[in-house]
């Protein structure tokens, strides 16, 4: 298989070779070389801890955004009640962006939770496999000639090696993804601090240019709807009443 599978097979073969072939006898490596196993299991624990830390950070980020949403909503209402539809519109546009970002953060949290579960399950599986290997090795030794046993034990060792390589790979992948999410969360924090929340769409990480344009289009419609709803809530006559601020802006009919 030369395609997706083929590439992965080659990658795994290299990793398994690295894991097992350092010693003369791969089976001995597995049985007595607890070092590798312990090292890997410790890495898994650390990996899971990292995932949990990132998850908490993103959850805090979500909470801040929730507050931001309430604040922007209030600002929009205030602006509207003072006849400043332009300001209300800006606040609502930012609110829409913040909502989109919040959705993306929520998705990231679910993704991290999934990763955490998968890593934990795979760590358990690897433990079982290593135990099964120790048992199986004795059975094979008792049942087969030395030469035959050597071959069969070698095969079983490769099976465990593949599991180790797979867990190592999953761990590496989880770390990379977690790192990306962290970088994105920091970028959001910086933008927020700098007050340039309207640049959120420039952050990337979610969708391509077309997605973004579509989001802007639907965002525009959402802003219009919400503006209309707020106007209605502010009561009839809100549109007719003179602006609270004496600015004399004639462009109220937008």
């Amino acid at each position: 298989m030369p395609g997706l599978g083929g590439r992965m097979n080659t990658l795994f073969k290299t990793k398994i070779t690295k894991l097992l072939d350092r010693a003369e006898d791969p089976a001995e490596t597995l049985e007595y070389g607890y070092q590798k196993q312990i090292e890997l299991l410790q890495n898994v624990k650390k990996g899971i801890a990292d995932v949990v830390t990132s998850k908490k950070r993103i959850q805090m980020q979500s909470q801040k955004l929730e507050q931001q949403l309430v604040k922007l909503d209030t600002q929009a209402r205030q602006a509207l009640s003072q006849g400043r539809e332009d300001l209300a519109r800006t606040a609502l546009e930012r609110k829409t962006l913040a909502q989109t970002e919040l959705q993306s953060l929520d998705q990231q949290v679910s993704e991290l939770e999934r990763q955490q579960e998968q890593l934990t399950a795979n760590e358990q599986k690897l433990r079982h496999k290593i135990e099964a290997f120790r048992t199986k090795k004795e059975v094979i030794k008792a049942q087969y000639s030395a030469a035959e046993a050597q071959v069969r034990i070698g095969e079983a060792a490769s099976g465990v090696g593949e599991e180790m390589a797979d867990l190592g790979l999953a761990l590496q992948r989880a770390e990379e993804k977690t790192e990306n999410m962290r970088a994105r969360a920091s970028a959001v924090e910086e933008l927020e601090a700098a007050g340039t929340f309207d640049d959120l769409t420039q952050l990337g990480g979610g969708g391509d240019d077309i997605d973004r344009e579509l989001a802007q289009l639907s965002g525009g419609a959402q802003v219009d709807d919400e503006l209309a709803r707020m106007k209605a809530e502010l009561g009839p006559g809100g549109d007719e009443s003179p602006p609270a601020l004496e600015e004399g802006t004639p462009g109220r009919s937008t």
Partner: protein
Amino acid sequence: MIVRISGEAQYQLPDADAERLNELDNQAVAAVEAGDEPTFQRHWNAMLELVTRDGDPLPDDELVESDVILPPRDLEFLEASAGFSGEGLIPD
């Protein structure tokens, strides 16, 4: 035939599925080369579905090497592309 979905599990599949899996794999690769993400996703999902639908998960005490190892389920188009430009799916 033993197929592993990386990051998940190993499955025992009927040998008859090898041809179909290979076919889908070739189509997925062609889509990557053509820069066609939707088609890639379609074939990639079909591969995963074939393995999980037709395959039986191997028990934990089964210690065998896989005949085919598929990338992780959440493989992204960009990663798949990088995989064929010599950079490798996961650079060492």
